[in-house]
């Protein structure tokens, strides 16, 4: 009889007792944000443009940080520009950044008090616009090394 009562109590305890789970243990608790245009996260692309407009959305009250960096000859990352945008009630952000000629490594982070920072990066290779003009004005004939200019 005692065994049965004990078994019943154990059954009730296992299936009906409240279970406490802390959010930190079961989710990342990172700031939720997304880049909707301007760059492709994780991607490398080329451009002739001097500027790029990065747009997206994030949580109200968070801060988006955009840092632009270039690698020097020794491979060290040099930061040359930073932008900070406070996110308001619409949750939107839009920032036009200036690119330098060469490989620009862009880091985008979203942070908010009480939440983990989340981030992403991408690479944009900016080429000199004069190259674009030369490419448009000239033609290349297979087998010939010289570009013939159309003037």
């Amino acid at each position: 009889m005692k065994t049965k009562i004990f078994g019943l109590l154990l059954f009730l305890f296992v299936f009906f007792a409240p279970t406490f789970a802390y959010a930190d243990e079961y989710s990342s608790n990172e700031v939720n944000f997304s880049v909707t245009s301007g760059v492709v996260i994780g991607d490398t692309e080329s451009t002739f443009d001097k500027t790029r407009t990065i747009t997206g959305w994030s949580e109200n009250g968070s801060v988006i940080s955009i840092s632009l960096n270039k690698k020097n000859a020794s491979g060290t990352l040099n930061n040359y520009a930073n932008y900070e945008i406070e996110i308001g009630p619409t949750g939107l952000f839009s920032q036009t950044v200036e690119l330098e000629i060469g490989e620009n490594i862009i880091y985008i982070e979203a942070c908010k008090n009480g939440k983990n920072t989340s981030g992403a990066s991408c690479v944009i290779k900016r080429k000199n616009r004069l190259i674009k003009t030369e490419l448009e004005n000239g033609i290349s004939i297979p087998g010939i090394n010289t570009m013939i200019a159309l003037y």
Partner: protein
Amino acid sequence: MTVIIMKLSKIQNFVIIALVIATVVQTGKLWLYDNDGHNFFYTVFADFINDGSTYSGETYILEPSSIITGYGNKKFSKFYCESDNSGIYDLGNDGIKELFSKGEFLEKSQLDWDSFLISKCLIFKYSQSVNINDFETSFGKNKDLKNDFNFNSILIYPQMNYGSTLKISFVDLEKEESYNYKITSSKVSKDIYDAIEKRQNNEIKSDNQITYISTKQSGFNIFYDNVFVPQWTENQIEYSLLKRTNPFEQNGDFSVSIFESYIDDFFDNSTSKWSEVNEQGGYLFSDDNTVVKYSVTGLLEYFNYKAVDENVEESFIKSYSAAKNFIKSDNSLKTDIYLENWYKENDEYIFCFNYTVNNMPLIPSDILKEMNNLDYCIEISVKNNSVRKYRRIAYNYEKENKTGLINKEFIKALDETVMINYQNSGGSIVTNVDDIKLAYYMSGKDSIKLRWFTTINNNVYSVSCEK
């Protein structure tokens, strides 16, 4: 000799008859100009004498409210028809004219802004829906376009080679669909492409600080329409303030003689008008059918009381053409304008124009609107192709030597506006924004500044462009 005398006599008779006829006509116009029933020669001359009350002249192409050039790299440039010095607006119209001559219908497709804006393009944006058949009449064409639809925007896609294909899409925002056409071997495709390239290169060389982005392409779905908003790289940029001038003033004072010299063109016979000064100090000139007023609040008004010819075939484009032609005759207007709105009320078409300076629109202040009972800078009413009423804020606007600063970008302005709307509406959340733009606010002050204007549920909110 006798023969010569007889011939001279005949010539003399013809000359006398011609002089008599001319005298009767001139007297009729001077004294009986609107009393056709009293004119003995009415039935003979009715087809030859245009009394100007019903417009039957040049047909004007319906102008877009704004023009956007897309460079294919998610950057755009926005400007207005009257301030276009590059000729790109005319080239766009040439392309549309080609469509109405030899264009082929391709397909009707779902609206996809991402694919629509990926290439170089020229965009004509209209403030209202336009019917394609009405629009075609303004080009003097009558081609069967295989479809009857309304559109809000026209997108023109040129190519860089001679005789290449030109594609044109008409976008219907309400139905979220587009009607796509092409012109094979277009004569203007390359010209439009080159004009867009040239504009882009000029902007790069001039270090133009302001560029435009598309809200749809940027993923900002809170906007109902595809709105082109200004962006800049620096934390703040300088811009020119505006000043206003009164074309009827001389040495700071209103001049009746200058005013009269401008308004004589509004009268069929300027010598027969009479004038008076009202209690508020405004001026009024009038004859039997026309009244022109100037008020101290800076409002110029014209009223036409001639009987309307009900037999005249009225159309939207003819009414628009009458309005445009009338505005062209207002020599006191020196500021560029653009068509902001139109609607029909009590059998009259009402066309509303605002001013534009420095590639930015001008919006009348609330006080200016209230004082003059005017929502736009110019409102013109047309009935049966005849202008009945013309009201405009009489000042002209131009850049002055002073500058202002913009350091609040559009999202900050939108955030502020959303909070204001939240407070005013008792806590309702904004899910749809109609429009947002930078515009000069036409206050009574001498230096006119830019402000952000956001339209939510047809309510316009204004916030400063400085933090």
